[in-house]
């Protein structure tokens, strides 16, 4: 099952742009964009922690399995 990054949903829910997040977590916009579009092959714990801290969420809120998301939408 593919891992789905729900960064877009979280950003929308918090009314935050990718650029703002990039400034807060000190990760380049390019890397965040790779993560958002699901092109990332791996994520560092430090990146995960920084994003979760900035978005005030848990790692599970940010990541999910493709199948889970499909069943959740259903």
């Amino acid at each position, binding site marked *: 099952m593919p891992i789905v990054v729900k960064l877009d949903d979280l950003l929308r829910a918090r009314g935050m742009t990718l650029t703002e997040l990039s400034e807060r977590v000190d990760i380049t916009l390019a890397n*965040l964009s790779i*993560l958002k579009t699901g*092109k990332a*092959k*791996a*994520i*560092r714990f430090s990146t995960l922690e920084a994003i979760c801290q900035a978005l005030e969420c848990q790692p599970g809120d940010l990541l999910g399995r493709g199948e889970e998301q499909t069943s959740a939408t259903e």
Partner: protein
Amino acid sequence: MTHSKNDPLLLVAQGLLVLLTGLILFALVMVSMGAAAVLTVQRAEILAKVAAAGAPPGLYWTLVAALFLVVVMLGFGLRFVIELGRIVASVRTGDPFCPANADRLARMAWLTLGIQAGAWLMILPALQVQPYVDRLPIRVDLQWPPTGLVLALVLFILARVFRHGTALRTDLEGTV
């Protein structure tokens, strides 16, 4: 990476490789011209010298084969230097861990083996010429240098290292 571009070691290496390419090309042209001359205009003269030295006429063809071998070895050497130049150029651009460099290193290892084999093959004509060496305008220097084998081994291992490094880099590229 600007650091790699201004690295004095890489600059010196590139300069030396250009010089070496020029030298090998020059040697390649000269030996090829010599071989062509031996086969055409100087043929009669060399055959006469071989006969005067009391050597069998087949020695002429031994000399031709030796010259041909030198041309092939110089060709291998030229290709080796070109491959090395490309690797140095890729280090300068800051992108050395690519599959092409692993292939280049493997090719360089095979070329080194080829040159080493050529050097050992040269012993055959040298042994044939040796009894007449004081009566012919030829100098024979018999050597069994094993350094080429060690270099080939190092290059084969480096090619493996580069392949592994390339795979690691590919993994890292998608990591955020």
